[in-house]
């Protein structure tokens, strides 16, 4: 549970010193998701809640992750259609390949996380969530306007 919250915070405030995630614009605006950011913000805030019991925190956390899976799957779907938009076509070949690989990975990990939630295995959820967080973080770092 705490692992998930720390991961959420890492994503929300990652690279904060460089103001990348907070102020920078993604290079490909089509895959920006305010919903995902809001969900991550709620996940992060749970660690500072003082009166929820551990069982209640788990329940809220599970709900937020389910929302996150839906949003991530939608995002991956958008990403897979990116070759049709102009800003993607302006990227060099190497960047296009890298982006496609990241989009595919996002799709796979969303599915993995969804399955872990269905199975109700906390360890699997934690692991898949960390992978998702890393994928998001890497993509946001790579594909951002200077």
């Amino acid at each position, binding site marked *: 549970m705490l692992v998930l919250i720390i991961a959420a915070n890492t994503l929300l405030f990652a690279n904060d010193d460089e103001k990348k995630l907070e102020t920078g614009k993604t290079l490909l605006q089509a895959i920006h998701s305010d919903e995902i950011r*809001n969900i991550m913000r709620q996940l992060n805030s749970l660690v500072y809640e003082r*009166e929820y019991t551990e069982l209640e925190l788990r329940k809220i956390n599970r709900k937020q992750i389910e929302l996150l899976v839906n949003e991530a799957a939608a995002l991956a779907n958008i990403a897979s259609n990116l070759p049709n938009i102009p800003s993607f076509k302006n990227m060099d070949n190497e960047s296009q390949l890298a982006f496609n690989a990241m989009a595919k990975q996002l799709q796979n990990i969303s599915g993995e996380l969804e399955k872990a939630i269905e199975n109700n295995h906390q360890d699997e959820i934690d692991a898949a969530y960390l992978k998702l967080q890393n994928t998001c973080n890497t993509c946001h770092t790579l594909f951002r306007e200077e």
Partner: protein
Amino acid sequence: MNIKSIYTKNIFIIVLFLISLTVEAEHAGPMDLTLGGRLKVDAIYNADGVGGIRTSKSDLAFSPGSIPIGNTGRNSFDANLRESRVWATLTLPLANDALSTYIEFDFFDTKKDSLGRTHIANEPRMRHLYSSFKNITIGKTYTTFANLSAFPEINDANGPVGNLLIRHELIRYNIPTSWGETFLALEKGESSFTSAIGSSFQVNDDQLPDIIGKIEFSETWGNISAAIMLREINANHRIISGVNDKKWGAAFSASGKIYFPKQDNLRFTISYGNVLGKYVSFNAFNDAAIDNTGKINLIEILSAHIAYQHWWTTTLRTSLVFGAGHANQDASIVPQTANKLFTSSHVNLLWSPIQKFTVGLEWLHGFRELENGNDGHLDRLQFSALYKF
């Protein structure tokens, strides 16, 4: 801790453990036991003492009813670890779901030692003990009437005036929906009264549980909840032998937590009703007054709190909190020394260099006014360090 208390708590734990073992044996599923807690150290300076005795709970956690009327000239300093907590969860897969049990203790039990000192006694106090299976929760935990996300992040253990923060025995049924959740609950009734001479007392005459319904809307911008409560307030033979009286009353509450850019958030609770006494502001007002003929007069209460939390950086934040509670009671029944109005203001600066650890300083100003117009105030400075494990 007295023998009876030890016995009761241990019996609870043993029974739960045996139930879990039995269910596990029957279903051969893996049992998951998780332990955790927090260490919290508080250093508190009261600019005007509260409660009258140095080591009363009021000196350690804000209790509006203990704000001194007039300046007592008694400043005090205290340090304690009583708000530290330990908890355990026991989860057992069962019928495509999970039976989860939770138990939590803090150290706020303030029994006196043989010399009458309470500040050295840090005995465990059970905060929660409940089990959840599918949509049903049974046990002792926070009332369904409250929205816990509306509780501001402050150092004080009790929170602001207007806060709904009571734990007691309940049975709760929740229905998850696409937009949030609906709750129905029966909770322990325990009426509190103001007598004709002004003293507060509780009776064990309640015959029906409190009935609570709540709907909660959750979205990525936050959540808002609305709750309704029906209570029967009952007193038998309390003032005049042979005189029984009971009255039904209702209360409403709306509360929530709304997110702003970054981590900033607004939390609020507003409550109104004539059976709120036990539920709001730590029973600073009572549920009802009993007149000289033994008849019950319900006390109408309006209370609210609002809190804005601003994040200065990713680790440093400030909460600005204001709470107020007002009782509209029949002046011909309650004494002139009965509480009429409370307010509290809190401002803090908290820092979490790592997420498990928070340290910070908080200032609290409390105000209390009686029916006769006399008032008093309390200023408190509280330093806290909290580590979650």
